[in-house]
């Protein structure tokens, strides 16, 4: 029963980025659903009951001269209390419309928040490259370099300077993938303050006001109020 609910909610995530984080939280406990997680699940169901009419808006007139693809990548640090791994997430906005989002627990344990965000940036880079090739297939050329926004300056500097020093030697080489693409000009990294970080709500539970702000930014609106 619990897995059935989780599965159904996962499908709902296709049109609702706002519940993505919570569904990912309850999915971790599919093998052993305790009373606490049932309460959480019920709360999600109560939330979607109240927001049945909400959906993703694709506004007209969003097409501009150049197509812009902006990614926001974020991560928490040691968010999982059992194995202390971090959760990374990203959102991609194509001409200001959210088209792709993901929240996923990282496969390795990060030692610092900078490292966690660096790894999250790598996952976002993979997705950005894939989206770019899909767009090419759809004859919808995207402006280069692709922009990726991260709210951690040290993670950005780590990716910009291809120098290996003592503090970053332990980061696995596959996570240096982002460095390669920054160097060859495919991706550009920008700092963005946490308030404007759209991927913020994908790694943690946020307060109502912030939640509503992020939901609006992710283009989730009530159909009846448009």
């Amino acid at each position, binding site marked *: 029963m619990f897995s059935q609910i989780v599965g159904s909610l996962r499908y709902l995530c296709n049109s609702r980025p706002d519940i993505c984080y*919570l569904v990912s939280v309850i999915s971790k406990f599919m093998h052993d659903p305790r009373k606490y997680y049932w309460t959480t699940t019920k709360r999600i169901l*109560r939330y979607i009951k109240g927001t049945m009419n909400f959906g993703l808006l694709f506004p007209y007139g969003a097409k501009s001269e150049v197509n812009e693809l902006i990614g926001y990548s974020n991560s928490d640090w040691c968010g999982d209390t059992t194995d202390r791994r971090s959760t990374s997430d990203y959102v991609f906005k194509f001409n200001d419309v959210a088209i792709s989002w993901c929240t996923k627990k990282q496969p390795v344990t990060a030692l610092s928040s900078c490292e966690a965000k660096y790894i999250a940036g790598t996952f976002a880079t993979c997705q950005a490259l894939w989206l770019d090739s899909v767009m090419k297939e759809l004859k919808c050329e995207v402006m280069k370099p692709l922009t990726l926004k991260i709210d951690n300056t040290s993670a950005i500097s780590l990716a910009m300077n291809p120098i290996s020093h003592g503090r970053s030697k332990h980061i696995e080489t596959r996570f240096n993938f982002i460095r390669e693409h920054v160097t060859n000009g495919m991706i550009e990294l920008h700092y963005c303050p946490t308030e404007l970080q759209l991927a913020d709500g994908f790694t943690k539970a946020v307060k109502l006001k912030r939640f509503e702000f992020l939901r609006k930014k992710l283009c989730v609106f009530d159909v009846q109020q448009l």
Partner: protein
Amino acid sequence: MIDHGEFSFLLGMEFVKLKVGMVMYQKKYIGELLDKFEMESCNSVSNPS
């Protein structure tokens, strides 16, 4: 191939065209989901977490 006109329902997703743009939502799916898990008469909350 038959042209069925503009699509409005696809894989549980509903599409409506409004003045501002097109909206993709899953109202019917949510209704069925709440029905299935017997939550159709619950009180709603505004923040899920």
